[in-house]
């Protein structure tokens, strides 16, 4: 009754399930220019919005005159805070428990802040009208330095009640936001005081920006007849946007449909809620027409969420033999004008308390002071889980500084202090429970592959040659070992605006044995349509090519918290696997009925259920799906569908070992990356080709941040790096070759053992590139120098060390 049975391996290969380097199904449309991004949304009668932005970083607004702009042919409306106030939309809540001006309410607090929103029939007219809005500013003293802000009499946030607590406890100064602490400070200080060796260092992790290729934007369409609002936008969390939009506007949630179409990169930049989204909604409600807002590159760099901007001071203690005994970390965190950091509610400094890294450190303390300044708000996780790049950079620099203090090899110092395989699950001093790891194996493999000892010998020879005047190039060996903390997160301690950070998957198997699955996440280039189909293929026996994956439409997809912080695979991937298992469980009952045996007498075999001990008797998933819809089966509902909402029991902890070999031209400050080796352990590997692509992308963004990418301000709060001329976005030209490698240590608590990988290379890459630069100068007395290591700063390091003669 069945066709000739193909070989089991052939059947398995045909599924293109987990472990297969399946080609990305999305790329067919992306490589042919057939993607559908928010700016591709064009609706009849659509109007266009554009912002009047503040040229000043801190100024009082004395008046706004919109007459000339309104008089321009084609201008429909010019909205100011005064217009939004009656709707109570001139301010909006931030994800961090603060509030933020939608349009300037009496004053501006950063350059580029939104002051008025012009709505016109044509994008060009809107831009012309922006020039005609007259704003009378009175300049105020500008604070761009967080340390100065904490001393200054200048009050940035006059809207906040003096002396009142903030969202995260007491504020000790009018420009102070919070102090967030973890660990045991008293014991840590005691250990440090009595330690044999202590190394101390202050490092600035500069402000940068995720800078996705596609900037942020939205199209709002309010249908006044049926009362429904449709909102297309660049949202990494469309369901959260719907809930927030409902709470802000008073429109019931079922009357709001949020759609994230194709998204051209997010990297955290598209997690936040921006004034442009709100203004496009209000403008559509006011005009009854669809309103589009798309920011340009300069607006994106200047006003939508930045990343990093942490001043970190560390003290680390060890025995003379190099065993670490304690770690103290204090951070002064520059949050800009409003606290709009995108972190889980209970974590105003994200997961900065993962800063003990991959090391067995018995006692530690972390304190983070958040500070207001006259810079753009934000503080997103740029290709990392919440503040994890900062944490890993901190500990990986502290290890290097400690190695200098101990006069020890930094690779060996790491090895001595790694958490051992048998210590997992490992409870870290600052509270997290690491799920699994095998750091020594990964480290040894990395060092062996790059022939670490030979590299050190070559470096020593180079130093001697340099001293003899035979070369002007120094060699740096950058090391980093990182542990990420991703997959936020358990609802018991992770929420955003009160919404637990679960995620979801809903599957429908069609009668002919193909399927559609929808998830609460949204791909921004990660390839979800490819990889989630692979998980389902392995779980249900339906070929990945026969499974459609959809995300991003809140009318059709199940509720989920979105894609950022490497949470899609750890959370939605788990939901997908579990939903697939529900399908399989029902399929088993149907198969048993069709085969006239008891449920327990059939077992799953790649793409079918077979009678135990009689493999010639089976039903394929295709046959089972057909029967599910077309055959009356006693006690079983028709249809084959499943839903799973997954609340993860713990985070997942991917890790990796990176090595960078760099040659540095001491005279010009130009670094040249000779070799970069990246070993990643992300647990179970779903699609090795996509993993490799993620590693390449994350490393390239790490190279950018380490070697030049920054948002810099002058003393007056003017953005100095507002275009791609000065903001470093590497192209293929600047990108070195990467060697990738892996070990596999599955997560014990994840249904398929996967941990997430998209952000690991960024987290591990930044300290690796930075350590390579700094290592090149170690022999000449360098202890630490701040990123970004662009040409002139590297040159200055050499100059300060007297290497220019």
């Amino acid at each position, binding site marked *: 009754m069945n066709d000739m049975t193909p070989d089991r391996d052939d059947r398995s290969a045909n599924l293109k399930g987990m472990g297969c380097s399946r080609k990305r199904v999305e790329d067919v449309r992306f490589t042919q220019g057939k993607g559908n991004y928010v700016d591709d949304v064009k609706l009849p009668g659509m109007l266009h919005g*554009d912002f009047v932005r503040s040229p000043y970083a801190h100024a009082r607004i004395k008046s706004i005159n919109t007459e000339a702009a309104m008089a321009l042919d084609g201008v429909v409306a010019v909205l100011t805070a005064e217009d939004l106030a009656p709707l109570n939309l001139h301010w909006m809540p931030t994800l961090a428990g603060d509030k933020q001006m939608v349009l300037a309410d009496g004053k501006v607090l950063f350059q580029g802040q939104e002051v008025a929103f012009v709505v016109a029939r044509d*994008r*060009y007219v*809107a*831009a*012309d009208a922006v*020039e005609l809005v007259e704003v009378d500013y009175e300049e105020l003293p500008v604070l761009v330095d967080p340390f100065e802000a904490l001393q200054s009499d200048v009050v940035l946030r006059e809207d906040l009640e003096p002396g009142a607590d903030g969202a995260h406890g007491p504020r000790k100064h009018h420009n102070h936001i919070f102090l967030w602490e973890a660990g045991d400070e008293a014991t840590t200080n005691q250990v440090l005081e009595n330690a044999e060796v202590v190394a101390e260092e202050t490092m600035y992790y500069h402000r940068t920006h995720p800078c996705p290729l596609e900037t942020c934007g939205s199209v709002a369409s309010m249908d006044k007849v049926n009362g429904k609002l449709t909102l297309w936008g660049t949202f990494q969390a469309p369901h959260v946007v719907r809930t927030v939009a409902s709470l802000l506007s008073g429109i019931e949630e079922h009357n709001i449909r949020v759609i994230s179409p194709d998204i051209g990169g997010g990297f955290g930049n598209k997690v936040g809620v921006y004034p442009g989204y709100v203004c496009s909604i209000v403008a559509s409600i006011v005009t009854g027409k669809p309103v589009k807002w798309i920011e*340009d*590159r*300069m607006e994106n760099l200047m006003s939508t969420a930045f990343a990093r901007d942490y001043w970190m001071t560390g003290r680390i203690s060890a025995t003379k033999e190099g065993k670490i005994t304690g770690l103290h970390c204090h951070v002064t965190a520059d949050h800009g004008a409003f606290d709009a950091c995108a972190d889980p509610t209970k974590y105003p400094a994200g997961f900065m308390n993962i800063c003990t890294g991959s090391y067995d450190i018995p006692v530690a303390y972390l304190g983070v002071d958040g500070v207001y300044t006259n810079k753009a708000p934000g503080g997103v996780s740029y290709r990392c889980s919440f503040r994890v790049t900062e944490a890993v950079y901190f500990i990986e620099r502290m290890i290097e500084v400690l190695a200098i203090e101990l006069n020890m090899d930094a690779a060996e110092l790491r090895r001595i202090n790694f958490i051992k395989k048998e210590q997992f699950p490992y409870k870290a001093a600052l509270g997290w429970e690491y799920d699994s790891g095998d750091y020594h194996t990964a480290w040894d493999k990395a060092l062996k592959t790059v022939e670490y000892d030979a590299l050190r010998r070559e470096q020593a020879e180079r130093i001697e040659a340099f001293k003899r005047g035979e070369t002007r190039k120094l060699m740096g060996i950058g090391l980093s070992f990182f542990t990420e903390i991703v997959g936020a997160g358990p609802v018991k301690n992770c929420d955003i605006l009160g919404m637990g950070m679960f995620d979801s998957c809903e599957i429908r198997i069609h009668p002919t044995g193909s399927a559609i699955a929808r998830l609460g996440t949204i791909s921004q280039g990660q390839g979800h349509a490819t990889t989630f189909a692979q998980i389902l293929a392995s779980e249900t026996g339906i070929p990945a090519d026969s499974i459609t994956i959809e995300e991003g439409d809140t009318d059709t997809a199940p509720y989920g918290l979105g894609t950022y912080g490497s949470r899609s695979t750890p959370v939605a991937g788990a939901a997908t696997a579990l939903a697939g298992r529900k399908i399989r469980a029902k399929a088993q009952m149907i198969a048993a009925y069709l085969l006239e045996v008891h449920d327990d007498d059939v077992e799953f075999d790649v793409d079918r259920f077979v009678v135990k001990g009689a493999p010639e008797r089976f039903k394929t998933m295709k046959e089972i799906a057909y029967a599910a819809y077309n055959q009356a089966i006693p006690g079983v509902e028709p249809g084959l569908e499943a839903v799973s909402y997954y609340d993860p029991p713990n985070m997942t902890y991917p890790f990796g070992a990176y090595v960078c070999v760099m040659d540095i031209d001491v*005279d*010009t*400050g*130009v670094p040249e990356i000779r070799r970069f080796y990246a070993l990643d352990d992300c647990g179970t590997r779903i699609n090795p080709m996509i993993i490799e692509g993620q590693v390449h992308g994350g490393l390239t963004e790490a190279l950018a941040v380490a070697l*030049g990418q920054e948002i*810099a301000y002058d003393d007056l709060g003017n953005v*100095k*790096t507002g275009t791609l*001329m*000065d903001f*470093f976005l*590497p*192209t293929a*030209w*600047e990108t070195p070759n990467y060697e990738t490698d892996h070990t596999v240590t599955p997560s014990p608590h994840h249904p398929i053992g996967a941990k997430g990988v998209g952000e690991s290379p960024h987290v591990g890459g930044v300290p690796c590139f930075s350590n390579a630069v700094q290592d090149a100068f170690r022999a000449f007395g360098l202890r630490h120098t701040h990123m970004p290591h*662009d*040409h*002139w700063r590297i*040159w*200055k390091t050499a*100059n300060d060390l007297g290497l*220019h003669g």
Partner: protein
Amino acid sequence: MIPAAFEYHRPADMADVIALLEEHGDDARVMAGGHSLIPMMKLRMAEIPHLIDLQDVAGLKGITVADGRVTLGAMVTQHELIQHQGLADAAPILREAALVIADPQVRYMGTVGGNVANGDPGNDMPGLMQCLDAEFTLVGPDGERTVSARDFCEAAYMTEREDEEVLTAISFDAPAGGYAYEKQKRKIGDYATAAAAVILQKDGGTCTAASIAMTNLSDVPVWSEAAGEALTGTTVDAAAVSAAVQAVLDDIDPVEDNRGPVAFKRHVAGIILTRAIQRAWDRA
């Protein structure tokens, strides 16, 4: 990044171009590749009510090498400079320089005429043309005239060209001897932190002639006569190179920007020049 409204003109001959320039005066600008002008318009740093596109104007294209003289039509793109074998044989320094200008996409559009006529101190071609002692042909209401590249730039974006004139061609003698164009930049597409164009002639072991020009180290390109003289008559030994570097350092006047402070730029200028001289000398 949305320009103000403008009229777009696309004349087919130079007479019409000049007529439009005369009619609209300061309100009109000609556009070659557009890769400097259009961004300025989109940033609204340049408001150009009348934009005159030169791409249909006859006679502005083409590279000729004849009797040791090279002539480049103003509308020759950087890409065409790179591709032209006759030019690579006659004046390989042009190819070497064009390869470090912007990126391939920009080089398909960006022109040599636009590069020199815009008067941007960051552009590579003006300095190179000074090194080559090129002549620029300008056509205006009163006919045609030539201006030496070394006299062309007055200040940033200010040149000898009158508002009603169009730069139509560049010509120079195919250089003899060794050459090098050396440029340090932060990334592809960037302007130079420092760049040096060097042409040296060698007879026996002695330098018989030297021409040196620097880019993006002042508000105009810097052709340093003194630097050339410092090398001429020497064996281009360390002392001579050092004297040439010192001469250049006396002539340049860099300003601090995101590429770095003045001290860094001066130091790098010396290093880049030293390397350019060494490479040119090896090739001479």
